[in-house]
């Protein structure tokens, strides 16, 4: 199988083109540096390999180094039959600086190059044009004018790529163009002769930036956008959550109504519908969260948020570039840790990676939601404007953020060496209207990935918990089961918070993955005889009684504890040190327990 390498400057639309050509749904957004890993997928009979965007073949950041090293290695690989180099027609000069460097390396290695001149719809929109034929003549390689967003020009490009991969020799320029030039000056010349004036686009962008980045307006907009993000998780997701809950209840009825009483029925009711089912109810919230984050990324606002946060974050040893990994951490810590590769300063990068686990990831969402439903009444405040549950939810996220900043400041002061720092330079992408289809697709993928990633762990632990809780005395005898006896042994750990052994078991089980908490608790309540309200775990817990102090202590514990084996593994890989994740795990566990105890003591 022949390979085609896809390269280009950051935010030039590579990933969206890659998705369009291969049919996969890789994450796409309007923020420089979203692709931090090399991805590949099938394109017709060939393989398309998407590289992280870079401004130059002289890398400064870790993601650039990965891209450049891999590109240089790949270009001499016999399987590589061509290079597709992305150009952004609205940022032509900047795109050409990298493109000319990549073209030189490829042609000297005997590998043909095709250029895709993207975002031509934007140029047409302002009544400008790019001289594609002239550019093609001077570059000595084929140039295709395309718009990945509007799906324009992609058929011609696809055919050309197919031909290039099949007959690469036909795409090598004859004669070879002069490659002995300074790419910076050459890019400037080519842009001057063939490029479009983008003054109109920049004027609009600058006007919006003056609002979003200046003074009170920008600050208020930032707070409102963040508040809306967390409010929407509780308000927009509710109808979907209700539907899932009703669906599980209906399915349970269909499956178990005509079944004979016994162990199989007990297992289905308690473990499957009570345990796994109660976890599924919260999946719509993960979809809403992913959708909103995607919306912010696609609009170009995230880069502005990074700028707004830069000054504050630098005071605690971080950088404005830490904002995007932090925000990604609300979905999942693993891609967030990878996203930290875009931070050039090794010190700030390490501090970001170490504190990302304090961002409340989607795995905590079911735990937060369940406990908030149990503890907080469904009331509106401020004249019905703000939902109280949404506000508590926002508070938990804020607690994680504040803790991350505090931990970072402490580590920056006492633990992480102050090396030569790297300056903050960030390209501001243009504002764009979001493309809905990829956003919806991304939200659906997040649900699918969450279920498939956590599903098998939850299922396995639910089965173990059910077996231990069911035997030797059957349903309704949880206290006298193997699980009950084991739970009573560990009860003293969480007893000071007023929590009985069932919570202790659920917390310990969730050290494998946080999501397990809800399923484990659901299974235990099922065995204990609450099966008549299968998916209504919150109602079962309320009926059973849990104090506000105990519940809040539990919530604070979940905000701070690092209960994710995958995060620790990725952290180890990214920092290249075995001890750091161990220290992080122990440190965050101690912090979580101490903070939970203080919370209980304060409220009780």
């Amino acid at each position, binding site marked *: 199988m022949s390979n085609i390498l896809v390269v280009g400057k950051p935010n030039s639309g590579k990933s969206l083109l890659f998705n369009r050509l291969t049919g996969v749904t890789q994450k796409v957004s309007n923020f420089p540096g979203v692709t931090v890993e090399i991805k590949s997928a099938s394109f017709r009979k060939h393989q398309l390999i998407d590289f992280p965007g870079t401004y130059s073949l002289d890398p400064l950041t870790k993601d650039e180094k990965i891209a450049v090293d891999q590109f240089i290695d790949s270009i001499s690989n016999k399987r590589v039959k061509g290079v597709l180099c992305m150009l952004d027609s609205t940022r032509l*000069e*900047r795109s050409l600086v990298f493109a000319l460097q990549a073209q030189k390396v490829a042609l000297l290695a005997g590998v043909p190059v095709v250029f895709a001149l993207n975002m031509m719809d934007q140029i047409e929109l302002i009544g400008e044009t790019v001289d594609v034929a002239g550019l093609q003549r001077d570059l000595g390689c084929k140039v295709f004018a395309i718009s990945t967003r509007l799906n324009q020009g992609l058929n011609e490009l696809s055919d050309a790529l197919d031909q290039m991969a099949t007959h690469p020799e036909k795409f090598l320029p004859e004669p070879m163009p002069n490659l002995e030039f300074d790419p*910076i000056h050459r890019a400037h010349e080519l842009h001057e002769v063939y490029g479009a004036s983008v003054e109109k686009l920049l004027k609009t962008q600058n006007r919006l*930036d003056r609002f979003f*980045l200046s003074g009170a307006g920008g600050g208020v907009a930032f707070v409102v956008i963040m508040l809306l993000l967390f409010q929407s998780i509780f308000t927009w997701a509710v109808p979907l959550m209700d539907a899932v809950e009703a669906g599980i209840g209906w399915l349970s009825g269909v499956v178990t109504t005509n079944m004979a009483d016994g162990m199989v029925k007990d297992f289905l009711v308690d473990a499957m519908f009570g345990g796994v089912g109660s976890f599924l109810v919260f999946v719509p919230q993960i979809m809403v969260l992913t959708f909103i984050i995607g919306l912010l990324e696609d609009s170009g606002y995230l880069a502005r948020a990074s700028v707004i946060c830069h000054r504050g974050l630098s005071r605690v040893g971080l950088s404005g570039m830490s904002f995007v990994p932090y925000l990604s951490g609300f979905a999942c810590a693993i891609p967030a840790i990878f996203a930290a590769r875009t931070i050039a300063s090794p010190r700030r990068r390490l501090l970001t990676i170490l504190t990302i686990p304090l961002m409340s990831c989607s795995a905590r969402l079911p735990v937060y939601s369940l406990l908030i439903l149990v503890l907080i009444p469904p009331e509106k405040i401020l004249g019905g404007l703000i939902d109280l549950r949404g506000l508590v939810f926002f508070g938990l996220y804020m607690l994680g953020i504040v803790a991350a900043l505090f931990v970072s400041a402490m580590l920056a002061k006492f633990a992480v060496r102050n090396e030569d720092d790297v*300056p903050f330079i960030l390209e*501001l992408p243009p504002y764009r209207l979001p493309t809905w289809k990829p956003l919806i697709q991304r939200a659906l993928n997040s649900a699918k990935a969450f279920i498939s990633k956590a599903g098998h762990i939850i299922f396995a632990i639910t089965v173990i918990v059910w077996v231990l809780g069911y035997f030797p005395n059957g349903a309704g005898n949880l206290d006298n089961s193997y699980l009950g006896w084991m739970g009573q042994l560990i009860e003293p750990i969480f007893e000071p918070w007023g929590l009985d052994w069932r919570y202790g078991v659920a917390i310990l089980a969730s050290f494998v993955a946080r999501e397990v908490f809800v399923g484990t608790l659901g299974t235990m309540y099922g065995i204990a005889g609450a099966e008549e309200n299968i998916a209504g775990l919150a109602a079962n817990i309320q009926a059973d009684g849990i104090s506000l102090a105990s519940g809040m202590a539990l919530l604070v514990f979940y905000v701070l504890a690092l209960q994710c084996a995958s995060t620790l593994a990725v952290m180890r890989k990214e920092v290249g040190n075995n001890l750091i994740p161990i220290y992080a795990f122990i440190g965050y566990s101690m912090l979580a327990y101490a903070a939970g105890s203080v919370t209980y003591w304060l409220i009780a």
Partner: protein
Amino acid sequence: MNKTETNSMWSINQGAKARVSGFVGVSAAYIKRMREIGLDVGAEIICVNRPPFSAPRQFQICDGVFSLDKEIADSIQVAPC
């Protein structure tokens, strides 16, 4: 700024234009990167936004807009156009 004066990029007023005249205390690797993003000696830049509280400022550099913090903007010397 008068026509012969050299100042740091951080001092450019909002809406004012200037030309890059040199770099002070920046590593060679960073000078190369700055040239690649358009901050080459002789390049014309415009300060498009000066947010308060020493937050990073926005500069139109060639066909793009970049945000630079005080530390780096102070190390880029500019002269009036």
